[in-house]
């Protein structure tokens, strides 16, 4: 089985979010970039398929040179080959076209992406890739087993879970649950050394023009101070929630 894992290169979840260039671009100053958390659960699941079922695992990212340390980290964790499509990611359609091109040319059986990137939260790339390459698609995927050409997956739905089966090729939008938090791997020294010898391919972009573009960013207005209610005065809280906030 050939697996392609899509990696987003995103600000760490604790990052302070600021904008620059007259609020038209994200300010990367002092920001630590990481593998997207949703992608990391998928990558770890891919490692399981590699170790238990002999799958090969390639990773792909769409990004400029500054994204290389992030995909190199996936090589140190255990992926076989990394591909960087040399383009600045602007919108989901463009990123999906790039990944679809890699997926099609590489004849992958399974493409694992995160359900959304934690920067722009589009939540579109995996579904678009699936449609573009004519593969099945399962989103918000929290469990995945593959046997031969058949996949069994569990996806989260509003208020519960759904178990699905389908044929490969398959694209999933993964998230926590694919593996547990404690199963995530930190690269060890041996992995880091081995990663240096693994291929990191840089590919020219193929995508057409983006369909959606950010023009300007803003931050929510500062919030007023919290209204503190005395712990012995629950009636006041209920009154505020009812009459002021109109929330109950």
């Amino acid at each position, binding site marked *: 089985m050939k697996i392609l894992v899509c990696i987003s290169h995103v600000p760490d979840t604790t990052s302070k979010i600021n904008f620059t260039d007259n609020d038209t671009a994200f300010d990367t100053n002092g920001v630590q970039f990481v593998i997207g958390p949703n992608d990391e659960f998928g990558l770890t699941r891919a490692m399981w398929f590699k170790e238990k079922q002999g799958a090969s695992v390639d990773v792909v990212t769409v990004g400029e040179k500054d994204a290389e340390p992030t995909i190199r980290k996936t090589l140190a964790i255990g992926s076989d080959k990394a591909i960087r499509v040399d383009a600045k990611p602007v919108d989901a359609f463009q990123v999906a076209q790039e990944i679809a091109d890699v997926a099609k040319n590489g004849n992958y059986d399974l493409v694992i992406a995160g359900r959304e990137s934690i920067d722009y939260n589009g939540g579109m790339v995996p579904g678009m890739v699936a449609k573009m390459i004519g593969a099945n698609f399962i989103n918000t995927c929290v469990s995945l087993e593959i046997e031969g050409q058949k996949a069994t997956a569990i996806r989260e739905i509003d208020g519960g879970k*759904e178990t699905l089966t389908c044929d490969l090729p398959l694209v999933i939008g993964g998230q926590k649950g694919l593996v547990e938090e404690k199963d995530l791997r930190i690269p060890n020294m041996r992995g880091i050394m081995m990663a240096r010898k693994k291929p990191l391919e840089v590919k020219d972009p193929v995508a057409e*023009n983006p369909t959606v*573009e950010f023009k300007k960013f803003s931050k929510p207005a500062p919030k007023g101070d919290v209204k503190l209610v005395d712990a012995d005065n629950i009636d006041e809280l209920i009154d505020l929630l009812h009459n002021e*906030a109109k929330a109950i």
Partner: protein
Amino acid sequence: MSILIYAESENKKLKKAAFEVASYAASIAEKTQDEVVAVTINAENTDDLGQYGVSKVLNVQNESLEKFNVESYSEILTKAVEEVNANIVVLSQSTNAKYLAPLLAVNLKAGYASNVVELPETESGFQVKRNVFTNKAFGMAEITTDKKIIGLSSNAFGLHEKEAKAVTVDFNPEISDSSIEVQSVDKNTDKVSIADAEIVVSGGRGLKGPENWGMIEELAEVLGAATACSKPVSDMGWRPHSEHVGQTGKPVASNLYIAIGISGAIQHLAGINASKTKVVINTDEEAPFFKAADYGIVGDAFEVVPQLVEKLKEFKANNA
């Protein structure tokens, strides 16, 4: 031209999200003079959409579509767009709508903006304001394609009634086969889901152990709320992953969010920031959640919550 909405239903009943996307589409249509058309799949009482500005309903009745199938559902919407020559499609951000929208975007070669929170601005191009960086910021996104898809964030626009009358017509496009098959659905039907909830009651590590969740559930029951939890609580296995809300968990955009024993890590606050009113109950007055909340009680959850449950029962009895 027309504006198409996907009006979702559950057990044949239209969901609140259906009326919210209808309200939003009707507001756009007021300016553009377009007609608002809804697609419903195996729903009843579809004429109710008229009260929110829908003038026509394409009603699909098909037993094989009883369970959601992303391929079939996105194909129906694609065909509906062609049928009524729609240039804008509005959908909710339910799990299923988010699942099918990217497929629809590729089918229609349409630009798709998700997590949208306001009506479009059309003075210079077609721009929509959407949440980015998990509610830590907003971005104005310009959709440059002829056909446009808008994913409307839950509770961002609200319900707005309009005097209109909807005509329901049968719509039965041919649907291709899909190899995706639903084997089983495990859904808690007697509890409201986080996505659909007006009120969410959430517990954190301050509750000390899973055995103490009784009072959280009781509070949720009095308020008709969904229950949720912080990341450490789900990581420790006190509560299921499906209840984890925050940046890597579920987003919450409820009218009221009550955090009990949650200190308010930046990732948690980001995930729940779209909620309108936030209440925190915590022993530690220095907890970061107090900076994000509208109302707060510095106090022990084990004393405050049982009192709150009792007082709310009285309040509900008096205001029923």
